[in-house]
């Protein structure tokens, strides 16, 4: 009876909830192809002019280039550090594991403004200038917990006897890593790179405080939001970033599941 009862309202609630999550986001693509400059219903007509206006925009293209540089560097560094952490967490037992991982995972629960101003204060204190470098330093900090979560889910259940077998068959330590360990962990690593890149691509707070004169895309968007006339072009740019993030994450999730299958663990979500 309970089943019938809950079955009654829970699926309806689930659909409403998903709608609440998706509808606001769906407005960006809808209005980005609307020919009217004011984002209201009813829609005027289909037009790609806002996308076309992005092309000749050198400031925007420069911000896009900065975002690409920051995202790539952050993803690489965060994933390398994440591999060390995930390997230590899944493979070895040692004292100090919990407090040390606690500190590394802390950015997940800290307000981003704390991370941003702490770094800013230290940089100003030591007279170091703000640049894309400083944004990368901050983004690595923020990406690291996510990278570790993805990598741990891929590394868990990795059977160490494969490595032992390789060593017994005469491979060197380096050879074992290159020919046994890395290929098995590759899907998780690719997934971590993509997830970290996406976080960096969308990250605003740290970039806002630490980017100095070199804006990333979210900082560029922030600057444009002051002008109502620029809104449609910003919606078009936002839609491109949205689609980019979705593609990257779907690919990342596919890789992560493949990693989980390879190491014979249960598949779960990115967090679960």
């Amino acid at each position, binding site marked *: 009876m309970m089943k019938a009862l809950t079955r009654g309202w829970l699926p309806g609630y689930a659909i409403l909830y998903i709608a609440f999550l998706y509808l606001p986001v769906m407005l960006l693509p809808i209005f980005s192809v609307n020919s009217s400059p004011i984002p209201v219903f009813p829609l005027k007509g289909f037009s790609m002019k806002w996308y076309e206006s992005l092309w000749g925009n050198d400031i925007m293209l420069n911000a896009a280039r900065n975002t690409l540089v920051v995202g790539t560097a952050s993803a690489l560094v965060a994933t390398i550090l994440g591999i060390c*952490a995930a390997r230590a967490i899944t493979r070895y037992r040692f004292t100090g594991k919990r407090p040390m991982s606690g500190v590394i995972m802390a950015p997940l629960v800290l307000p981003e403004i704390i991370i941003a101003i702490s770094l800013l204060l230290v940089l100003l204190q030591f007279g170091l200038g703000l640049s894309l470098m400083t944004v990368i330093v901050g983004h690595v900090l923020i990406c690291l917990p996510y990278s570790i979560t993805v990598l741990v889910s891929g590394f868990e259940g990795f059977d160490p006897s494969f490595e032992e077998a390789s060593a017994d068959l005469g491979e060197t330590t380096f050879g074992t890593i290159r020919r046994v360990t890395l290929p098995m962990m590759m899907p998780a690593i690719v997934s971590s790179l993509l997830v970290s890149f996406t976080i960096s691509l969308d990250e605003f707070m740290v970039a806002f405080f630490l980017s100095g004169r070199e804006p990333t895309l979210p900082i560029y968007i922030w600057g444009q939001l002051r002008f109502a006339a620029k809104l449609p072009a910003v919606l078009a740019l936002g839609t491109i970033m949205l689609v980019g993030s979705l593609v990257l994450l779907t690919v990342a999730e596919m890789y992560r599941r493949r990693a989980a299958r390879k190491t014979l663990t249960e598949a779960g979500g990115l967090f679960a």
Partner: protein
Amino acid sequence: MTAAVDHVMPAPRQRTVRRNWLRSEQGRGFTLLSLPFLYALTFLVLPMLVVFAHSFWTQTYLTIDRSFTLENYRIALTEPIYRDLLLRSLFISLTVSVATVLFAYPIAYYISFYGGRRKGLWLFLITVPFWTGYLLRVMAWKVILGYNGVLNTTLMGLGLTDKPVESLLYSTNAVILTLIHAWAVFAVLPVFVSLEKIDRSLIEAATDLGDGPLRRFMRVTLPLSLPGVTGALLIVMIPTVGDYVTPKLVGGTEGVMIANAIQAQFGRASNWPLGAALTVSTMVIVTAMAGAAVVVMRGFVRALR
């Protein structure tokens, strides 16, 4: 002779000890984890200590006076503007975390108990909007709630109001609504994980012993899932207290939060020590609030049993 040997021996032995340690489980794990740990120490923990130190100093123009003072804290906690901003930020983060968890619980319950083989797909569906960039989502709400925004024009189009409802944008409510949307996934996942861990035979046992659906839920499912609920509360409450983007874009003057004041101290106002004291005060108070939430939830579990 023996004395000489004794004298020479310790060095290689020490080296072997170190080599053995590096090869041991303890040594390997520790060495591997210390690389990311040192990164977090250098760029997170040390900078936070620098902020903490600054909160006891004073600044005149560009020079920092390093003599100890509690003046910044007096200003941060008693000056009406900062005190009100702090209280409002705490109120908003408490409201948002409670509301987010209340809305998230049924969906987590549905996925865990009725998701069947599509659990993974459901979780993916819930997480996707979260990945679409925080700024973009807040921007979407600005488009919806604006004076001439989607909601107002739709309401007018349907003839429900004849002029725009002004309170929709630039208000505390707009901030709360936007934050509930932005943090939804952080509430669903911890609750889902704790529901997944519940041994289903316990629920069957409750049924067999004659508990009705509501009683069974209140006495078995809910108490066992409360660790996830507490986790969800904290993971929403702590970050939202320091939110900057949402109040700035949809809050107007009524919805300003403490992060906006902190940012001003590091920008225009340029009073780093006061900014640092505001930051430390916010963190300490929100941590206390989080601790209180944990105690309340524990009491709740005991009362349910």
